[in-house]
Protein backbone atom coordinates (compact mmCIF):
# COMPACT_ATOMS: atom_id res chain seq x y z
CA UNK A 1 0.00 0.00 0.00
CA UNK A 2 1.30 3.39 -0.96
CA UNK A 3 0.40 6.45 1.09
CA UNK A 4 2.17 9.11 -0.95
CA UNK A 5 -1.10 10.45 -2.26
CA UNK A 6 -1.45 12.40 0.99
CA UNK A 7 -4.93 10.92 1.31
CA UNK A 8 -5.20 7.77 3.38
CA UNK A 9 -7.76 6.06 5.57
CA UNK A 10 -7.61 5.12 9.23
CA UNK A 11 -10.01 2.88 11.12
CA UNK A 12 -10.66 4.53 14.45
CA UNK A 13 -13.28 3.31 16.93
CA UNK A 14 -14.85 1.14 14.22
CA UNK A 15 -15.28 3.99 11.75
CA UNK A 16 -13.23 4.69 8.63
CA UNK A 17 -11.83 8.19 8.52
CA UNK A 18 -10.18 9.77 5.52
CA UNK A 19 -7.11 11.85 6.30
CA UNK A 20 -6.61 14.63 3.73
CA UNK A 21 -4.26 17.53 3.23
CA UNK A 22 -1.83 16.32 5.85
CA UNK A 23 1.92 15.80 5.90
CA UNK A 24 2.32 12.01 5.87
CA UNK A 25 5.02 12.05 8.57
CA UNK A 26 2.52 13.17 11.20
CA UNK A 27 2.11 11.08 14.32
CA UNK A 28 -1.11 9.21 14.98
CA UNK A 29 -1.56 11.42 18.07
CA UNK A 30 -1.49 14.57 15.95
CA UNK A 31 -3.82 13.12 13.32
CA UNK A 32 -6.36 11.95 15.92
CA UNK A 33 -6.48 15.32 17.63
CA UNK A 34 -5.99 17.80 14.80
CA UNK A 35 -7.36 16.00 11.73
CA UNK A 36 -10.04 13.64 13.02
CA UNK A 37 -11.51 15.76 15.80
CA UNK A 38 -10.79 13.18 18.49
CA UNK A 39 -9.10 15.26 21.20
CA UNK A 40 -9.63 12.76 24.05
CA UNK A 41 -6.13 11.37 23.51
CA UNK A 42 -3.68 13.80 25.10
CA UNK A 43 -0.22 14.83 23.99
CA UNK A 44 2.53 15.89 26.36
CA UNK A 45 6.06 14.56 25.92
CA UNK A 46 5.82 13.41 22.26
CA UNK A 47 8.61 10.92 22.95
CA UNK A 48 6.83 7.92 24.43
CA UNK A 49 7.68 8.66 28.05
CA UNK A 50 4.45 9.97 29.58
CA UNK A 51 1.73 7.62 28.28
CA UNK A 52 -0.93 10.34 28.03
CA UNK A 53 -1.36 9.51 24.32
CA UNK A 54 -2.01 5.78 24.91
CA UNK A 55 -4.41 4.15 22.42
CA UNK A 56 -5.14 0.54 21.50
CA UNK A 57 -3.80 -0.48 18.11
CA UNK A 58 -4.52 -4.02 16.91
CA UNK A 59 -5.15 -5.09 20.48
CA UNK A 60 -1.95 -3.59 21.92
CA UNK A 61 -1.54 -0.49 24.08
CA UNK A 62 0.79 1.87 22.23
CA UNK A 63 1.93 5.48 22.44
CA UNK A 64 0.14 7.16 19.55
CA UNK A 65 2.86 9.84 19.42
CA UNK A 66 5.31 7.13 18.27
CA UNK A 67 3.11 5.74 15.47
CA UNK A 68 3.47 7.33 12.06
CA UNK A 69 -0.23 7.68 11.21
CA UNK A 70 0.18 6.86 7.52
CA UNK A 71 1.67 3.44 8.47
CA UNK A 72 -1.45 2.56 10.51
CA UNK A 73 -3.67 2.34 7.44
CA UNK A 74 -4.82 -1.24 8.07
CA UNK A 75 -4.84 -1.19 11.85
CA UNK A 76 -7.79 -1.17 14.21
CA UNK A 77 -7.35 1.86 16.43
CA UNK A 78 -9.37 2.44 19.58
CA UNK A 79 -9.20 5.65 21.56
CA UNK A 80 -10.59 6.73 24.92
CA UNK A 81 -13.67 8.06 23.09
CA UNK A 82 -14.72 4.48 22.30
CA UNK A 83 -14.87 3.24 25.89
CA UNK A 84 -18.17 4.63 27.13
CA UNK A 85 -21.55 4.61 25.45
CA UNK A 86 -23.35 7.94 25.52
CA UNK A 87 -23.04 9.68 28.87
CA UNK A 88 -22.53 6.52 30.90
CA UNK A 89 -19.05 5.89 32.29
CA UNK A 90 -17.27 2.55 32.30
CA UNK A 91 -16.52 0.99 35.70
CA UNK A 92 -12.91 2.21 35.37
CA UNK A 93 -13.92 5.78 34.52
CA UNK A 94 -16.51 5.83 37.29
CA UNK A 95 -13.99 4.53 39.84
CA UNK A 96 -11.52 7.27 38.83
CA UNK A 97 -14.21 9.83 39.67
CA UNK A 98 -15.41 8.29 42.93
CA UNK A 99 -11.94 7.40 44.28
CA UNK A 100 -10.40 10.77 43.41
CA UNK A 101 -8.06 9.39 40.77
CA UNK A 102 -8.53 12.52 38.68
CA UNK A 103 -6.87 15.75 39.74
CA UNK A 104 -5.70 17.92 36.85
CA UNK A 105 -6.98 15.14 34.57
CA UNK A 106 -4.38 15.40 31.85
CA UNK A 107 -3.00 11.88 32.30
CA UNK A 108 -6.44 10.36 32.88
CA UNK A 109 -7.40 9.34 29.30
CA UNK A 110 -4.08 7.51 28.84
CA UNK A 111 -4.36 5.82 32.21
CA UNK A 112 -7.97 4.79 31.60
CA UNK A 113 -7.03 3.24 28.23
CA UNK A 114 -4.02 1.42 29.76
CA UNK A 115 -6.15 0.09 32.64
CA UNK A 116 -9.05 -0.97 30.39
CA UNK A 117 -6.47 -2.80 28.27
CA UNK A 118 -5.01 -4.53 31.34
CA UNK A 119 -8.44 -5.60 32.63
CA UNK A 120 -9.47 -6.90 29.20
CA UNK A 121 -6.57 -9.36 29.39
CA UNK A 122 -6.41 -9.86 33.13
CA UNK A 123 -9.69 -9.14 34.96
CA UNK A 124 -8.18 -9.69 38.43
CA UNK A 125 -4.64 -8.30 38.36
CA UNK A 126 -2.25 -8.36 41.30
CA UNK A 127 -0.80 -5.13 42.71
CA UNK A 128 2.47 -5.69 40.86
CA UNK A 129 0.65 -6.40 37.59
CA UNK A 130 -1.27 -3.13 37.92
CA UNK A 131 1.93 -1.20 38.65
CA UNK A 132 3.63 -2.79 35.65
CA UNK A 133 0.66 -2.09 33.35
CA UNK A 134 0.68 1.64 34.13
CA UNK A 135 4.46 2.01 34.50
CA UNK A 136 4.48 3.92 31.21
CA UNK A 137 1.82 6.43 32.33
CA UNK A 138 3.00 9.40 34.34
CA UNK A 139 0.73 11.30 36.76
CA UNK A 140 2.24 14.35 38.45
CA UNK A 141 -0.72 15.12 40.74
CA UNK A 142 -2.09 12.11 42.57
CA UNK A 143 0.98 10.20 43.70
CA UNK A 144 -0.80 7.16 42.19
CA UNK A 145 -2.41 6.00 45.45
CA UNK A 146 -5.90 7.00 44.42
CA UNK A 147 -5.35 5.58 40.95
CA UNK A 148 -4.53 2.16 42.44
CA UNK A 149 -7.64 2.49 44.62
CA UNK A 150 -9.67 3.25 41.49
CA UNK A 151 -8.36 0.11 39.77
CA UNK A 152 -9.22 -2.01 42.83
CA UNK A 153 -12.72 -0.51 42.91
CA UNK A 154 -13.28 -1.12 39.18
CA UNK A 155 -12.12 -4.72 39.54
CA UNK A 156 -14.47 -5.40 42.43
CA UNK A 157 -17.44 -3.70 40.71
CA UNK A 158 -16.88 -5.78 37.59
CA UNK A 159 -16.53 -8.95 39.66
CA UNK A 160 -19.81 -8.21 41.45
CA UNK A 161 -21.56 -7.58 38.12
CA UNK A 162 -20.31 -10.81 36.56
CA UNK A 163 -21.15 -13.05 39.52
Amino acid at each position, binding site marked *: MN*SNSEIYSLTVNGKTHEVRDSW*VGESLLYVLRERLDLPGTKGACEQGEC*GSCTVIMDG*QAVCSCLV*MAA*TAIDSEIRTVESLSVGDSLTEVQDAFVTEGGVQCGFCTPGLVVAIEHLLSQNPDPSEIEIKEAIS*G*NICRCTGYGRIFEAVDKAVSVRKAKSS
Partner: protein
Amino acid sequence: MSVLVPRTLQDALQATAANPSAQLIQGGTDLMVEINFNHRKPTDVIALRRVDELKSVNIDIKNSQITIGAGLPYQQMEHGEIALHLPALAQAARTVGSPQIRSAGSIGGNLGTCSPAGDALPVLSALNATVNLQSADSSRAISIHDFMVGVKRNARMPGEIIVSTTLPIVSGWQGYSKVGVRNAMVISVASCCLVVDRINGTIAVALGAVGPTIIRCRETESWLAAQVDLKAKTTVSPNLLQEFGDRIATESKPIDDHRSTAAYRRHAVAVLARRMLTRANAQ
Protein backbone atom coordinates in the same frame (compact mmCIF):
# COMPACT_ATOMS: atom_id res chain seq x y z
CA MET B 1 7.19 12.65 1.24
CA SER B 2 5.96 9.12 0.60
CA VAL B 3 5.18 6.27 2.97
CA LEU B 4 5.21 2.67 1.80
CA VAL B 5 3.73 -0.10 3.93
CA PRO B 6 4.79 -3.41 2.31
CA ARG B 7 3.13 -6.65 3.49
CA THR B 8 5.82 -9.15 2.55
CA LEU B 9 9.59 -9.21 2.89
CA GLN B 10 9.86 -9.50 -0.88
CA ASP B 11 7.82 -6.32 -1.38
CA ALA B 12 9.89 -4.55 1.27
CA LEU B 13 13.15 -5.61 -0.41
CA GLN B 14 11.89 -4.42 -3.79
CA ALA B 15 10.94 -1.10 -2.24
CA THR B 16 14.41 -0.65 -0.71
CA ALA B 17 16.04 -1.65 -4.01
CA ALA B 18 13.99 0.97 -5.84
CA ASN B 19 14.81 3.62 -3.24
CA PRO B 20 17.95 2.59 -1.30
CA SER B 21 18.14 5.85 0.64
CA ALA B 22 14.56 5.61 1.95
CA GLN B 23 14.22 5.79 5.72
CA LEU B 24 13.21 2.43 7.23
CA ILE B 25 10.87 2.49 10.23
CA GLN B 26 10.05 -0.52 12.41
CA GLY B 27 8.34 0.23 15.75
CA GLY B 28 8.93 3.98 15.48
CA THR B 29 10.02 4.43 19.10
CA ASP B 30 13.29 6.12 18.08
CA LEU B 31 12.50 7.65 14.68
CA MET B 32 9.17 9.23 15.59
CA VAL B 33 10.79 11.10 18.48
CA GLU B 34 13.23 12.69 16.02
CA ILE B 35 10.40 13.50 13.60
CA ASN B 36 8.13 14.91 16.36
CA PHE B 37 10.91 17.26 17.44
CA ASN B 38 11.81 18.27 13.88
CA HIS B 39 15.28 16.78 14.21
CA ARG B 40 14.68 14.74 11.11
CA LYS B 41 12.32 15.18 8.19
CA PRO B 42 12.60 12.10 5.97
CA THR B 43 11.48 12.37 2.37
CA ASP B 44 10.63 8.72 1.78
CA VAL B 45 9.72 6.15 4.42
CA ILE B 46 9.35 2.38 4.16
CA ALA B 47 7.46 1.01 7.17
CA LEU B 48 8.27 -2.58 8.12
CA ARG B 49 5.64 -3.06 10.82
CA ARG B 50 3.27 -5.12 8.64
CA VAL B 51 5.94 -7.56 7.39
CA ASP B 52 5.13 -10.75 9.30
CA GLU B 53 8.31 -12.53 8.16
CA LEU B 54 10.26 -10.05 10.28
CA LYS B 55 8.43 -11.29 13.39
CA SER B 56 9.25 -14.98 13.04
CA VAL B 57 11.12 -16.99 15.68
CA ASN B 58 13.08 -20.14 14.90
CA ILE B 59 14.23 -22.17 17.90
CA ASP B 60 16.79 -24.67 16.61
CA ILE B 61 17.60 -26.91 19.57
CA LYS B 62 19.66 -29.32 17.44
CA ASN B 63 22.12 -26.58 16.50
CA SER B 64 21.70 -24.77 19.84
CA GLN B 65 20.64 -21.49 18.34
CA ILE B 66 17.64 -19.18 18.08
CA THR B 67 16.90 -16.83 15.20
CA ILE B 68 14.66 -13.92 16.13
CA GLY B 69 12.97 -11.75 13.51
CA ALA B 70 14.18 -8.14 13.56
CA GLY B 71 10.63 -6.83 14.02
CA LEU B 72 9.53 -9.09 16.89
CA PRO B 73 8.34 -6.77 19.68
CA TYR B 74 10.24 -6.97 22.99
CA GLN B 75 6.96 -7.94 24.65
CA GLN B 76 7.28 -11.36 22.95
CA MET B 77 10.70 -12.00 24.53
CA GLU B 78 9.77 -11.29 28.15
CA HIS B 79 8.38 -14.79 28.81
CA GLY B 80 8.00 -18.14 27.09
CA GLU B 81 10.43 -20.12 24.96
CA ILE B 82 12.80 -17.24 24.14
CA ALA B 83 13.06 -16.31 27.82
CA LEU B 84 13.71 -19.96 28.72
CA HIS B 85 16.69 -20.28 26.38
CA LEU B 86 17.95 -16.68 26.44
CA PRO B 87 17.26 -15.41 29.96
CA ALA B 88 19.61 -12.43 29.57
CA LEU B 89 17.65 -11.28 26.51
CA ALA B 90 14.37 -11.68 28.41
CA GLN B 91 15.74 -9.57 31.26
CA ALA B 92 16.89 -6.89 28.81
CA ALA B 93 13.49 -6.97 27.08
CA ARG B 94 11.71 -6.44 30.41
CA THR B 95 13.78 -3.31 31.11
CA VAL B 96 12.83 -1.63 27.83
CA GLY B 97 10.62 1.45 28.36
CA SER B 98 7.06 0.58 29.32
CA PRO B 99 4.42 -1.90 28.09
CA GLN B 100 3.54 0.63 25.36
CA ILE B 101 7.16 0.76 24.18
CA ARG B 102 7.68 -3.01 24.44
CA SER B 103 4.69 -3.66 22.19
CA ALA B 104 6.43 -1.62 19.44
CA GLY B 105 10.21 -1.76 20.02
CA SER B 106 12.33 -4.56 18.55
CA ILE B 107 15.90 -5.84 18.23
CA GLY B 108 15.89 -4.68 14.60
CA GLY B 109 15.12 -1.17 15.80
CA ASN B 110 17.91 -1.29 18.40
CA LEU B 111 20.32 -2.49 15.69
CA GLY B 112 19.13 0.07 13.15
CA THR B 113 19.49 2.98 15.58
CA CYS B 114 22.68 1.47 17.04
CA SER B 115 22.66 3.64 20.15
CA PRO B 116 25.16 2.41 22.77
CA ALA B 117 22.24 2.55 25.23
CA GLY B 118 20.10 0.10 23.21
CA ASP B 119 19.01 -2.52 25.76
CA ALA B 120 19.33 -5.62 23.57
CA LEU B 121 22.78 -4.76 22.24
CA PRO B 122 24.93 -5.81 25.25
CA VAL B 123 23.13 -9.18 25.17
CA LEU B 124 23.83 -9.61 21.44
CA SER B 125 27.46 -8.68 22.05
CA ALA B 126 27.98 -11.02 25.03
CA LEU B 127 26.41 -13.88 23.07
CA ASN B 128 28.40 -13.14 19.87
CA ALA B 129 25.16 -12.86 17.90
CA THR B 130 24.99 -12.80 14.14
CA VAL B 131 23.02 -10.07 12.35
CA ASN B 132 21.27 -11.29 9.20
CA LEU B 133 20.85 -8.71 6.44
CA GLN B 134 19.05 -9.03 3.14
CA SER B 135 18.74 -6.95 0.00
CA ALA B 136 16.75 -7.61 -3.19
CA ASP B 137 19.56 -9.66 -4.75
CA SER B 138 21.76 -10.85 -1.88
CA SER B 139 21.92 -11.74 1.78
CA ARG B 140 24.72 -11.80 4.32
CA ALA B 141 25.36 -12.66 7.95
CA ILE B 142 27.67 -10.41 9.92
CA SER B 143 28.98 -10.61 13.49
CA ILE B 144 27.41 -8.14 15.92
CA HIS B 145 30.95 -6.96 16.69
CA ASP B 146 31.44 -5.89 13.06
CA PHE B 147 27.88 -4.58 12.70
CA MET B 148 28.18 -1.85 15.33
CA VAL B 149 30.74 0.64 14.02
CA GLY B 150 30.16 3.78 16.11
CA VAL B 151 27.66 5.97 17.93
CA LYS B 152 24.42 5.44 16.01
CA ARG B 153 26.41 4.03 13.08
CA ASN B 154 26.22 0.48 11.77
CA ALA B 155 27.35 -1.63 8.83
CA ARG B 156 23.94 -1.81 7.11
CA MET B 157 24.30 -0.85 3.44
CA PRO B 158 21.72 1.24 1.56
CA GLY B 159 19.04 -1.11 0.21
CA GLU B 160 19.59 -3.70 2.95
CA ILE B 161 17.03 -4.70 5.57
CA ILE B 162 18.00 -6.17 8.94
CA VAL B 163 15.88 -9.33 8.85
CA SER B 164 16.90 -11.20 12.00
CA THR B 165 19.54 -12.00 14.55
CA THR B 166 20.86 -15.45 15.43
CA LEU B 167 21.86 -16.13 19.04
CA PRO B 168 23.46 -19.28 20.48
CA ILE B 169 21.84 -21.22 23.32
CA VAL B 170 24.57 -21.32 25.98
CA SER B 171 24.73 -23.68 28.95
CA GLY B 172 25.41 -21.61 32.08
CA TRP B 173 24.15 -18.57 33.98
CA GLN B 174 23.42 -15.37 32.07
CA GLY B 175 21.90 -12.05 33.06
CA TYR B 176 21.39 -8.40 32.19
CA SER B 177 21.25 -5.42 34.53
CA LYS B 178 21.01 -1.71 34.00
CA VAL B 179 21.12 1.48 36.00
CA GLY B 180 18.70 4.34 35.40
CA VAL B 181 16.89 6.99 37.39
CA ARG B 182 13.78 4.88 37.92
CA ASN B 183 12.58 1.36 37.18
CA ALA B 184 10.31 2.02 34.18
CA MET B 185 10.75 4.29 31.19
CA VAL B 186 14.47 4.93 31.40
CA ILE B 187 17.23 4.99 28.90
CA SER B 188 20.26 3.22 30.38
CA VAL B 189 22.82 5.24 32.29
CA ALA B 190 24.95 2.08 32.28
CA SER B 191 24.15 -1.54 31.50
CA CYS B 192 25.90 -4.89 31.64
CA CYS B 193 25.31 -8.39 30.28
CA LEU B 194 27.23 -11.33 31.74
CA VAL B 195 27.18 -14.81 30.21
CA VAL B 196 28.94 -17.86 31.67
CA ASP B 197 29.61 -20.76 29.30
CA ARG B 198 29.98 -23.76 31.61
CA ILE B 199 30.86 -26.16 28.78
CA ASN B 200 33.78 -24.15 27.43
CA GLY B 201 34.74 -22.59 30.77
CA THR B 202 34.51 -19.02 29.49
CA ILE B 203 32.77 -15.83 30.51
CA ALA B 204 31.57 -12.90 28.40
CA VAL B 205 30.89 -9.40 29.73
CA ALA B 206 29.41 -6.65 27.54
CA LEU B 207 28.76 -3.08 28.66
CA GLY B 208 26.18 -0.61 27.33
CA ALA B 209 26.04 3.22 27.48
CA VAL B 210 29.69 3.50 28.57
CA GLY B 211 31.35 3.93 25.18
CA PRO B 212 30.64 4.80 21.55
CA THR B 213 29.30 1.28 20.97
CA ILE B 214 28.84 -1.77 23.18
CA ILE B 215 32.14 -2.70 24.88
CA ARG B 216 33.26 -6.30 25.31
CA CYS B 217 35.62 -6.66 28.28
CA ARG B 218 37.86 -9.23 26.65
CA GLU B 219 40.90 -8.67 28.89
CA THR B 220 38.87 -9.15 32.06
CA GLU B 221 37.13 -12.17 30.53
CA SER B 222 40.39 -14.01 29.85
CA TRP B 223 41.88 -12.85 33.16
CA LEU B 224 38.97 -14.35 35.12
CA ALA B 225 39.00 -17.59 33.11
CA ALA B 226 42.66 -17.99 34.10
CA GLN B 227 41.90 -17.39 37.80
CA VAL B 228 38.95 -19.73 38.31
CA ASP B 229 37.55 -22.87 36.72
CA LEU B 230 34.40 -21.57 35.05
CA LYS B 231 33.33 -25.09 34.09
CA ALA B 232 32.39 -25.69 37.71
CA LYS B 233 30.40 -23.65 40.20
CA THR B 234 33.18 -22.00 42.14
CA THR B 235 33.18 -19.50 44.95
CA VAL B 236 34.84 -16.31 43.84
CA SER B 237 36.77 -14.82 46.77
CA PRO B 238 35.94 -11.25 47.86
CA ASN B 239 39.35 -10.05 46.68
CA LEU B 240 38.91 -11.62 43.27
CA LEU B 241 35.38 -10.19 42.99
CA GLN B 242 36.69 -6.74 43.84
CA GLU B 243 39.42 -6.95 41.23
CA PHE B 244 36.93 -8.28 38.65
CA GLY B 245 34.77 -5.16 39.04
CA ASP B 246 37.81 -2.87 39.00
CA ARG B 247 39.04 -4.42 35.76
CA ILE B 248 35.58 -4.11 34.16
CA ALA B 249 35.51 -0.41 35.11
CA THR B 250 38.94 0.08 33.54
CA GLU B 251 37.73 -1.40 30.25
CA SER B 252 34.71 0.95 30.09
CA LYS B 253 35.07 4.25 28.23
CA PRO B 254 32.25 6.43 29.57
CA ILE B 255 31.69 10.15 29.05
CA ASP B 256 29.92 12.89 30.99
CA ASP B 257 26.58 13.77 29.39
CA HIS B 258 23.08 14.95 30.28
CA ARG B 259 22.21 11.52 31.68
CA SER B 260 25.14 10.93 34.03
CA THR B 261 28.85 11.39 34.64
CA ALA B 262 31.74 9.24 33.48
CA ALA B 263 32.82 8.60 37.08
CA TYR B 264 29.39 7.35 38.11
CA ARG B 265 29.10 5.13 35.05
CA ARG B 266 32.52 3.60 35.69
CA HIS B 267 31.46 2.84 39.26
CA ALA B 268 28.07 1.50 38.10
CA VAL B 269 29.45 -1.05 35.64
CA ALA B 270 31.83 -2.39 38.29
CA VAL B 271 28.93 -2.87 40.71
CA LEU B 272 26.68 -4.46 38.06
CA ALA B 273 29.40 -6.86 36.90
CA ARG B 274 30.32 -7.94 40.46
CA ARG B 275 26.66 -8.43 41.30
CA MET B 276 26.05 -10.63 38.30
CA LEU B 277 29.20 -12.69 38.80
CA THR B 278 28.00 -13.34 42.36
CA ARG B 279 24.61 -14.42 41.06
CA ALA B 280 26.23 -16.61 38.41
CA ASN B 281 28.10 -18.54 41.07
CA ALA B 282 25.22 -18.76 43.51
CA GLN B 283 23.33 -21.17 41.26
